[in-house]
């Protein structure tokens, strides 16, 4: 009952001097807007990364390359024998070693013309036996490739799309690669799952010969494997590696660094908020000193005034926080336009920017807690500087 009366009184004091608190409201609104976006964005990146790790089989792969500088220049070939021994040491079930070539499709029988440059891959038949069993994504297409004989090629749907050919026409036609060799198209790779590594190659060529060197190799690990423990071995071989598992870690790290930076900036903002609020509160306290004196005479205690001050402060934080939340909802669209092009390792990290209810609640909570603490500080401070701040009494 007493508290209710005190709250009512505080509210009427706030209303009487709205202008005094406008700055605090604005600063709390800005800080909450900022906090909401920092947390929404960080949350967004994290879930994006989680999605990526969960839905993309490549997170259990390590790709290796050789990028050694030798006297002759850059040595970017991998020695096939060495890759095989590395595979054994790593204990992997399978390894894919590929040689990618930029192939100019110069002619396609029955359809002359200037075809686009597409990337093609020579598929080394002996290697396919080493593919991991659990590597399900590609098995459907592998089956078709297995049937490849010398001088034959299989094209992907992507190839169809790019050359503008019809599905029924394509089989039996000949393509000539830029190295001059001709291949007969014997099949079409269809329905490749999204994200399959085979998607990026449009032409598969048969080549029974295993070459001494390959461009890169991919090791597929079972899901439980601790990828990080394997990297040491690869480093000892002197190869450079890339793995999405590590990049996911790195991205999560970036997301948390980013929210840490956000938090640090927020703390600075919060201090500004507190200073502006403390000022307004001190003026109010000074102005109502006579009233408080009277209140004490009527039977209230210092604690009650502390309550009033904290309540007054808390209301400011709440008003600012709520305005910030509303602002956040209003401005998401334009803010998303600003940040959507951000990317990390070629991956779009911000597919969507949404104000999450969780971040709103968190932000409101922070605003209220900070403002109430500010009220407490103002109250403590006021007993020290009372004499200076006591302005003319508002009582009549």
């Amino acid at each position, binding site marked *: 009952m007493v508290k209710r009366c005190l709250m009512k009184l505080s509210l009427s004091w706030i209303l009487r001097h709205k202008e005094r608190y406008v700055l605090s409201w604005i600063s709390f609104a800005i800080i909450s807007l900022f906090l909401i976006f920092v947390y929404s964005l960080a949350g967004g990146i994290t879930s994006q990364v989680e999605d990526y790790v969960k839905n993309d089989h490549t997170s259990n792969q390590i790709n290796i390359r050789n990028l050694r500088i030798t006297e002759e220049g850059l040595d970017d070939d991998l020695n096939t024998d060495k890759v095989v021994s590395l595979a054994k040491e790593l204990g992997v079930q399978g390894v894919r070693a590929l040689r990618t070539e930029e192939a100019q499709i110069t002619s396609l029988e029955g359809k002359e013309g200037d075809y686009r440059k597409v990337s093609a891959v020579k598929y080394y038949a002996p290697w396919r036996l080493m593919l991991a069993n659990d590597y399900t994504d590609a098995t459907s297409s592998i089956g078709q490739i297995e049937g490849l004989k010398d001088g034959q090629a299989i094209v992907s749907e992507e190839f169809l799309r790019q050359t503008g050919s019809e599905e029924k026409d394509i089989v039996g036609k000949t393509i000539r690669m830029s190295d001059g060799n001709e291949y007969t198209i014997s099949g079409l790779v269809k329905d490749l799952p999204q994200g399959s590594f085979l998607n990026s190659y449009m032409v598969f060529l048969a080549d029974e010969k295993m070459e001494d060197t390959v461009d890169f190799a991919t090791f597929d690990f079972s899901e439980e494997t601790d990828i990080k423990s394997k990297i040491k071995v690869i480093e000892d071989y002197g190869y450079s590696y890339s793995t999405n598992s590590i990049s996911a870690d790195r991205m999560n790290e970036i997301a948390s660094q980013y929210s840490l930076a956000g938090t640090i900036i927020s703390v600075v903002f919060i201090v500004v908020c507190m200073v502006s609020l403390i000022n307004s509160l001190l003026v109010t306290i000074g102005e109502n000193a006579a009233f408080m004196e*009277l209140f004490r005479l*009527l*039977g209230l*205690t*210092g604690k009650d005034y502390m309550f009033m001050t904290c309540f007054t402060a808390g209301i400011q934080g709440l008003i600012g926080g709520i305005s910030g939340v509303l602002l956040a909802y209003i401005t998401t669209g334009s803010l998303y336009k600003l940040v959507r092009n951000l990317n990390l390792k070629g991956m779009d990290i911000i597919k969507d920017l949404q104000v999450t209810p969780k971040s709103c609640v968190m932000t409101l909570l922070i605003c209220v807690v900070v403002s109430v603490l500010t009220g407490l500080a103002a109250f403590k401070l006021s007993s020290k500087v009372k004499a200076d701040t006591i302005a003319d009494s508002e*009582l*009549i």
Partner: protein
Amino acid sequence: MIKIENVIKNYKVGETQVHACNGVRLEIPDGAFVSVSGRSGSGKTTLLNLIAGKEKPDSGKVLIDGVDIHKLPDKQLSKFRNENIGFVFQSFLLEPSMTALENVELPLIIRKYSKEKRREIAKDMLEKVGLGERLYHKPGQLSGGERQRVSIARALCTNPKILVADEPTGNLDAKTGEDIMALIRSLTKDCTFVLVTHDEELARSAPIRIVMRDGKIISKNG
């Protein structure tokens, strides 16, 4: 009974020390009407504040019914004041955002009376001070005399044992002042009433009359 035992209160501002109360001894029996007069700066308000527990003495004691009020912790002192002492000041100290009724209700809210009960008491009290028609006026809509009546109603609605008044008529014209004094007298028949005043005639009308100078009581009759 109020017993003041050798109370000393000094104020130090910069280098100068002011002996606002310099060894005051005084006994006020229950139900007495005491007037305190003296020159400006002689320590009247200070004495009143010490009696009311608003200021703490540097030394000495203020005993009310045997309780050394300055030894009470903050919370208990507040409670003690709420239950035993009513205050009226020269300025009325009314909260402008509240109606007359709400202003009078304040000490009753603090006493945790139910809404109905405190409404009833406050209304009753405002009727007694002649403001039955002004219950929902805000202080800004009341005249000076009416405001002082509200503050009197606020001081007396808790039925205090002691009423302290610091120049309650100081801000009012002579006629209104007389009315207000008559009102206070009629309402404080059973309670101890300590009145600080500059008005010679008013001071003389009190059965016990104290005159102060330089923080000391220089004369006392009755």
